[in-house]
């Protein structure tokens, strides 16, 4: 991760469980739009970069 955040740190910041972050990273759970926005804000990026682009994108 570019921001050197662990899954548990990111999970705490957006108010979800670490398991949820892990599932999103592994494409096993489609988060709600509000959670997507929270994640994008915390990771200081936009939704396109975070969820759309496959190549060269670090989630």
């Amino acid at each position, binding site marked *: 991760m570019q921001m050197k955040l662990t899954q548990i740190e990111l999970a705490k910041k957006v*108010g*979800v*469980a670490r*398991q*949820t972050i892990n*599932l999103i990273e592994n494409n096993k*759970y489609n*988060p*709600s739009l509000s*959670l997507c926005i929270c994640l994008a804000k915390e990771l200081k990026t936009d939704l396109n970069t975070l969820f759309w682009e496959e190549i060269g994108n670090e989630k």
Partner: protein
Amino acid sequence: MRNKLINRFIGAIDDRDEYQQQEIYKELALSGMLLWYLTMLLMVVGLIVDTIHNKLSFLTPALFIINMVYAGIIMSRLRKKQLDDTDCASIEEYEEKKKRLKKSSTFGGVLWGLFMLIFMQYVFPYLSTGEIDVSWLKVLIWGIGGIFFGSMMYWFSKSKLQKHF
């Protein structure tokens, strides 16, 4: 209030996130359905035992009432939120869905009529007195019952089809 109740039920200390909530709802819904089928089965077993002993216990009608009230509440709640509606965008789609409903309702009616005929005229009289009570009139009665049940099923299911054309 609902979240608090669910947390207490599953034994969680703090609030669940959206993924966990979604999975909890799925698990609770499935277990609720299984429990309903289990209590229905228990009711049939209770009815068989009661028939053998020629008495009506408290448990059998109680289970029947609980199951019917439970089913009624769930059905009315689903209806209220329009969760069981089916949208039809064209007349062809509507006709196709109506045809499917007709087929499943006919099957349901036949199955219900047969089940009732076998249990009410063969199984229960045999368990109670050791004699089988069957006549063409009884077959006719349960046949009409099956047609009525199937028609009601069809009418009820058809009312869930929403025309958008």
